[in-house]
Each structure stands twice: as C-alpha cells, then as structure tokens.
C-alpha cells in the first residue's frame, strides 16, 4: 500500500514538474507572474509547515522571517552594493538567528501563548522596519537592483518564474528529506506527545528550535528572491495578515503533508486571481470558498491516505 502510494506520488510529481517546466511556452506574462507567486507561496508555506505541521508549534508571525530575508537582500544590495547572490547566505544567517531569537525563549510556552508571542515578534519586526532609517522607514526600499545569472539580467517574468520554480523544487526536496529523517521523526514524536518524547531521550528544546530555524531559513531565502522580483519592499507587505495567509495555505492544504501544502499554496494565489472577474466581491468569494473547504475537509485538502 505504502509503496504504491509512493509510486503514485512520484508520478504525480513528475507530471506536475513537466507541466510547470513547459508552461512558459503557452503562457503570457500575467500567468507567469501568477505562478511565480504560487511557487513563492509554496516555498513559504513549506517553511511554515516545518514549524506548524512537523513540530506542531503554532506560529502567527512567520512573515517576520520572510521580512528578514527580503530586507537583508534589499539593504545589502542597495546600501552596500553587495552582489545579490552573496546576500543569500547572509539572509540565511540572519533568518536563522531570528529563528533562534524567537524560538529560544518561547519554547516552554503553551501553544496559544506561543501564538501570541510569535505574533508579537512578527509585529515588532514589522514596526522596527517601519521606524528604522536603514530599512527606508515606511516607504521601504525601492529600486533594488536586478540580479545577474550567468550574465543574464533577471528582469522578465519568465526569469523569476524559473527562479521560483527551482526554489519550490528545492523546498519540496528538502521538506521531503526532512520528513523522513531522524529529525523529522523526532518532530513527529514531540508533536504527538512531548513528555513521552522526552522520556525516550529526545531533546525537546533542541528539536523544536531546529524546526524554528529551518522554517525561518525557508522564509528568509524566499524573501531574498521576493525582494529582487518586486524591486521594492515596504513594511506593509509583512503585516500580520501575511502571516495569517501563509498559515491558511498550510492548514487548507493539510498540515504536515507536502503535496497538501503545495495545493494550499495554489489555492491561496489562484483563487483570488480567478475571482478578479467578479470585481469587488472577489475577496468575499475567496473567503466563502475557504470556509467551505475548511468545513468540508477539516483535515486539509490532501486526503489522509495519500499523505
């Protein structure tokens, strides 16, 4: 049964990968931009999935990590003239550090108190970005240079389409490896029963911290690419609603299940775009669909037996 599922899943992945690679042949700029967004949300949702899905920690401030990555790239390239590709390791470093800063002191809190603390940290990061000089204040940083990739300037939608597609593949691959690793099993253990896990010799704090740090790095790297794609970032992008949106994607899809989370990211981006034709009611239509999806499939979109 399990083998068959695995094979089936591999087939689905292969099919989707083929479609994704071939899409630019038929698609226009708008479609490419929309799908770059989808892949972007695939990466951040998978990142949050590590915290929420694998380790079972409720995080309401995930946009903070994404902000750290985006601002690292923006500040380093604009103020210090650092090459974009060199900012990625810096962003990984800073987001990992922020993961430790947020995760470290809060891990002994109960889940709902943890939720408000992560929310608080998220807001603190955003307000700091709004108030500090180096981050450009509330106007943010604009005119971020486009990166070069082997001599090609990345400026068209198609470049970012492939960039985010690669990132999404990478995120899926890493998530997959993590899920079945020793650490992944430890997360599952801690999620299901913390005390029993501790009794079995799992260092609960270290395991949870690892979830925070790895999740933060996903967000940070996605943020780097987000900054150069948008060429302008401002604190408004990292509001609490952004964190909620990412969490919505994870839960709608089915937390802890990689294909589910991917579905969630698709739903998150595609539905509001599809409903553009209903005009002002588009967000209402999106909200109603979300509610129905949640009520019909409380465990998430992706069916249990395939996960």
């Amino acid at each position: 049964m399990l083998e068959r599922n695995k094979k089936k899943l591999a087939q689905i992945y292969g099919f989707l990968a083929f479609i994704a690679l071939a899409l630019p042949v038929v698609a226009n700029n708008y479609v490419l931009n929309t799908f770059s967004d989808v892949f972007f949300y695939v990466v951040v949702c998978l990142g949050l999935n590590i915290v929420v899905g694998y380790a079972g920690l409720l995080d309401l401030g995930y946009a903070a990590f994404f902000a750290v990555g985006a601002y690292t790239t923006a500040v380093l390239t604009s103020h210090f003239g650092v090459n974009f590709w060199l900012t990625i390791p810096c962003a990984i470093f800073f987001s990992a550090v922020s993961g430790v800063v947020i995760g470290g002191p809060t891990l002994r809190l109960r889940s709902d108190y943890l939720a408000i603390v992560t929310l608080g940290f998220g807001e603190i990061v955003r307000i700091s970005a709004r108030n500090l000089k180096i981050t450009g204040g509330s106007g943010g940083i604009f005119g971020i240079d486009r990166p070069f990739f082997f001599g090609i300037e990345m400026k068209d939608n198609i470049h970012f389409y492939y960039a985010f597609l690669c990132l999404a593949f990478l995120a899926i691959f890493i998530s997959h490896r993590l899920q079945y690793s020793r650490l992944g099993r430890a997360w599952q253990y801690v999620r299901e029963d913390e005390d029993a896990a501790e009794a079995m010799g799992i260092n609960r704090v270290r395991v949870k911290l690892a979830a925070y740090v790895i999740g933060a790095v996903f967000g940070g790297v996605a943020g780097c690419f987000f900054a150069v794609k948008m060429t302008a970032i401002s604190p408004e992008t990292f509001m609490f609603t952004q964190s909620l949106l990412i969490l919505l994607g994870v839960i709608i899809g089915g937390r802890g299940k990689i294909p589910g989370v991917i579905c969630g990211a698709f739903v998150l981006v595609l539905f509001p775009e599809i409903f553009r034709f209903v005009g002002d009611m588009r967000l209402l239509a999106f909200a109603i669909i979300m509610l129905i999806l949640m009520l019909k499939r409380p465990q998430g979109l992706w069916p249990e037996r395939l996960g």
Partner: protein
Amino acid sequence: MFKKSLLMMVSAALAVVLAAGTGLAAGEVKVGIMIPTTGGTATDGKDMESAIKLAADEINAAGGLLGKTIVTTTGDDACDPQQAVAAASKLISEGVVGVVGGYCSSATLPTLALYGEAKVPFVITASNSTALVGANPGIGFMINSTGDAQADTAVGLFESLGVKSVAIVHMGEAYSEDLAKISRSKWEAKGNKVVAYEVVNKGEQDFSSLVTTLKAKNPDAIFWTAYYAEGALLIKQLRQAGYRGKIAIGDGSNSPKLIEIAGRAAEGVYCFSNPIVDYLPAAKGFAENFKKKYNVAPGPYSTLSYDGMMLFADAVKRAGSFDKAAVAKALKATKDYQGIAGPISFTDKLTLARSNFVVLNVKDQKWQLHK
C-alpha cells in the same frame, strides 16, 4: 473521487487563468485602469475608475481614438504593493496600450519597474509621493503635484497665519511619511520649530494619548499628512480635548467624508488639495455628466483621473499611432494641455510643471477656497 474533483478544480482554475487576457475584437484598443477597488481606499479608487470610464465613453462617443473604440480594463491594486504587481502584470499581459490611475503611492511604486520594462506609458493621476520620482523609468507621468509642492503650500499657509510652532502627525506609510518629512525639513529650513513629530497606526480609532501629548506641547498648528478616515477622528478628538490651535490636513484627507465624520470639529480646518470640482469652472460639465451617469457627486481625484484619460488620448492623437514609445514621447512633449483641473505640462522628471495645490477651509460644514 475527491482526488478527481480536486484535479478538476485545479485544472479549471488553470484554464481560467490561462484564458485571461485574450479576446479583443478588431477595432478596439485596450487601456488599463489601476486603482484599488477593494480594501479601505476602495471608495476613492472606484471614484477614479468612474471618472476614467466617463472620459473613455466620451471619447468613444466622439468617434473613438484613431478610429478605434477604447475598452477599459481594471486592475485592482488593493492599495497593496504585492497585489499591485499582480494587477500590473495582468494589465500588461492583456496588451494595454497605456495605463491610467495610481492612488496609493506605496502600491504604485513597485509597478513602475514593470511598466518600464513593458514600455507601457502610465499616467499617474493621484499618487504623488516623491519616492515615485526617483523610481520612474521614464514611463510614469505624474499629473498631481508631488509632496514637494504640497509642503511649500503648507509652509506658505502657516507663515501667512503667523504660526510659530507646528506639530506634524503621519500614519507610517509611504505617502504620509514622505509629506511629513518634506514638510518638516522645509519648515525647519525657514528657522521655525517642529515641536512634535508623531505617528499613528492605520485603522486606530483612539488617539486620546496622542492628543494629550500634542495638547501638552501646545503647538500653534497641527499638520496631519495622511488620509481622511483617521484624520477625521484625530481632529474630533483634538477639539473634544479642548485644543484650540489651527489644524491643517494634506490632500489625502480631502474628502466630504472628513467633514461628515468630524462634524462640527472640522470647522476651520485647512486642507491642501488639488482643486476640487466646485472651484473649477472648466469642470462644471464634467460634474453634471458624472452625477447623471453614476448618481453620486464626483470625489476628490475624479477631475485629475478624467484629465489623465483625456491627456492619454490626446497624446495618442499627437503621436498618430498606438506605438507605446511614440505615445510616451508625445506625453513627454505635452505643452499646456488644457485639462478640466488646469493646464498640464511636464518637467524633465515627468512631474507636473506647476503646483496645483490650493488651500481649502471648512466653513459651515463645506469646503471653501481659502484666499
């Protein structure tokens, strides 16, 4: 079973998205409108959209543009940078020959690079943060004066009123902080004092603690640089707490709603604004047509938006083609185009060559032109 329906749902979604941006009949030409139609600024956005559509209808009724009918297509930027980029990409993919609109500066900002790469000329009718000037790749044409001009108007008014100390309050987003910053430096450059420089959060209702702070510093005038919704509450609470100095507000607060919400507290408030319909003799016909068609009075940015569409059409005629580069060139060469909100020419930075700011004053629950 469920997998099948999921698959069908996703493929249907794909099909809809893929199909977007096709289907334009011969003899038609598409012009994009980028404004917020959802979110807290939707009211102003829709008002602008109506004005632009009215202009397009009038052009079509008069025989179209170079023999073609104008079809408008709206991209909702929701006053949010991320959604603005999606909306701009959508408009570009739909093959628009130009875009008119732009309300929130923060949302307009990241779209400039996109329009620049697609070479789509963009007539910016409301956004006026000075940040846009530096980020403009040569396709954005700002027909509302920038924050610089507004700050000059503000400083001029304060001096003429004999104000010595000013408190400035902004809302922590691109437009209002830009205006606050420029006003502060211009005011201080004249040797005057800014006794308080404060910020409030978007969506807050209770400003009592800020009001106490301001009242304690007792400035001669308080300058609110952000939008009308929070501005009305601030004005009301300032007056309730017994502040008796002068209050001035920026063009984002120019709305009849401000008076409606603030009530009698709004009496005597000064507003720097692009001219509103009531004081534009040339806009009389426009106001009547607008009322007839939409059954509401035109809002604060409607005249500029109407002018934006008309100016674009004028540039196309002058260029003699829909070629984007030629249209952009023609726009740049605009010399004293007579819009209903006043003449339009551009500086070499593509901003409005004159300051279109006037000072309004609330008298008997109505905006009056301040002499």
